[in-house]
């Protein structure tokens, strides 16, 4: 593992160049260009606000800001997975002809989506400010959350991107799983609406809340909301769960990727 990380460090110039290229390529040829990285989440938020605040009348103060807080990390996560899974196939010409560690390709997708999110953060702060929310010193947790999310996402995309080369179904399955995951994470609703337990029949009571946080994305999104929106420190247990998942995913993801590595150039 240390050798892999050293490899990645050795190729940092390539990674930086490719991230820059991906960011520039995304909006090349569009009139509004980079503004789209703000506009996309903003428009999406407005749609949800219309549905949940206006039509369904969710009784929550500053619902739009709350929504935006969860939406930004979610968009980073979901578009990373979507782009990165197709990254190796999409750059087949490169993998076939130039010798470089192929994991760079999915990682570049994750990183460029991360940059996108970082660029949207000022907009979030603007919102918070406009709605009179002052997060305070708990914001110091932000770098930790970003690193955790980066490691978790990287760990997930590595095996997905490699498997997708062999089995293109991965892309399709993933698209559906992401929808499920979106609703299983506290983005449209605060965690407080998730019941602590769920009685099934007379005898059984399912401890719903602990199960809910088995999903590391839930813990992650909740932590973002706590530090930005609620001005509180992240929940330690939930954060611990996220950390464990990120570590396991990264280690396991690399392990799977290494297993498939040699086959990529001929299968892609």
């Amino acid at each position: 593992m240390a050798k892999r990380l050293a490899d990645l460090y050795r190729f940092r110039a390539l990674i930086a160049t490719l991230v820059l290229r991906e960011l520039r390529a995304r909006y090349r040829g569009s009139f509004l260009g980079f503004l789209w990285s703000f506009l996309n989440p903003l428009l999406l938020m407005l749609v949800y606000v219309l549905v949940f605040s206006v039509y369904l009348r969710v009784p929550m103060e500053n619902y739009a800001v709350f929504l935006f807080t969860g939406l930004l990390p979610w968009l980073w996560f979901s578009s990373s997975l979507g782009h990165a899974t197709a990254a190796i196939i999409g750059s087949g010409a490169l993998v076939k002809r130039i010798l470089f560690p192929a994991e760079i390709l999915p990682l570049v997708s994750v990183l460029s989506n991360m940059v996108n999110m970082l660029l949207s953060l000022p907009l979030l702060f603007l919102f918070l400010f406009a709605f009179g929310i002052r997060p305070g010193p708990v914001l110091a947790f932000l770098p930790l959350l970003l690193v955790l999310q980066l490691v978790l996402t990287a760990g997930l995309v590595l095996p997905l991107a490699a498997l997708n080369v062999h089995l293109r179904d991965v892309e399709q399955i993933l698209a559906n799983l992401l929808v499920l995951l979106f609703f299983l994470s506290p983005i449209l609703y605060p965690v407080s609406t998730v019941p602590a337990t769920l009685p099934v029949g007379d005898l059984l009571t399912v401890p719903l809340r602990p199960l809910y946080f088995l999903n590391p994305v839930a813990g992650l999104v909740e932590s973002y909301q706590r530090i930005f929106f609620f001005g509180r420190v992240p929940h330690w247990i939930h954060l611990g769960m996220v950390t464990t998942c990120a570590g396991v995913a990264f280690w396991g993801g690399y392990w799977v990727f290494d297993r498939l590595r040699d086959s990529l150039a001929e299968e892609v």
Partner: protein
Amino acid sequence: MSRPAAVAIWNVSKRFRLHRGRRVSTVKDLFVRGGRTALFAGEEMWALRDVNLELPRGRMVGIIGSNGSGKSTLLKLIGGILKPTSGSVTVAGRVSALIELGAGFHPEFTGRENIYVNGVLLGLPRAEIRERFDEIVTFAGLTPFIDNPVKTYSSGMYMRLGFAIAVTVDPDILLIDEVLAVGDEAFQHKCVGKIQEFKARGKTILLVTHDLPSVERLCDEAVWLDSGRLMAHGATRQIIDQYLSHVAREEAQALGTEHQRAEAAAAAGTAQRWGTREVEITSVKLVDGTGQERYLYDAGEPCTISLAFRAHRLVEDPVFGIGVFRKDGVCCYGTNTAIDGVAFGKLAGEGEVTVYIEGLDLVEGEYLLDVAVVQATDNHPYDYHSRLYAFAVRSRVKDTGVARLAHEWRLHERGGT
């Protein structure tokens, strides 16, 4: 070999899995058998088989062989892009592979931006790219276009830019796959110049190409692969000769088979054969100077066309004729016994008429043969076989036209000015 090896290939085999239709037979397979076996299910193809090869440092080596012989696979194994299924590949030094130039160019980006991305991909530090940027652009001859997106480039411009970037990487071992065919004459000269510069600096160069004259001109030694096996490795001239005679043998074999098929078709009856059949041409053969039946000739070789006939009744002075046609229908040469003033008198039963051609002085190419026997006075055909038989002429001299006229060049100087 006394020189230290730049590339050592030991017992290398490479297997590819061919996928037909579905990549995994069933989803159940994937989960039940799990892991590698299920993921890689499919037919196999050995691109290389038990190849042992040691290439000394500082030499330029040409890799030749017909399509699908494993040349590019070998290059990719040396480049580290593919891993051998068994055996080992050791490479001493930094490798740069010119395998399909411009891989990784982004069409939306300008030439300038792509130089940076591609350069970094090939392992050049950004500072070095910045330093040698003008050199790259000038070498590619793209100065006026460097700030246009590469999607507006012609394929030649694209390749030139790719080549210019790739040679900027200062490798110890340079792998070149069919890129000399890139660009116009002027750029090819530049490429060859660059390659010679690499050679002069003691780099090891591997060149995969079908352009044998290039191999002969540039390479110190050659490797011949056929169907994934190493056939020979040695001095360039010698290996090319071996390869060419192998190709000629295979071609001759194919032409022989084709001739048998043509004779069978003639016997069965076809639209390309007509006549009243009082006299039949029962067999047509081309025979070389040593009496061997053969359908592939070197230009200028002696050749005999032999027509076996059967006369079903007594016929007087039948006229036998031959015609040689190019595939596009141009008649290269035609004659018959009447034109040549030859008369065989009365014929009955079976026999054979032969035409001895002292030198088959045709230019390189494939030819079709007409043979016929016709009645002497009213010229009605007894048996006419039109374009049924094929033969080929090979030549190392690439002259053009229809026939090779016997010739000799001389210079007569007049002196003075």
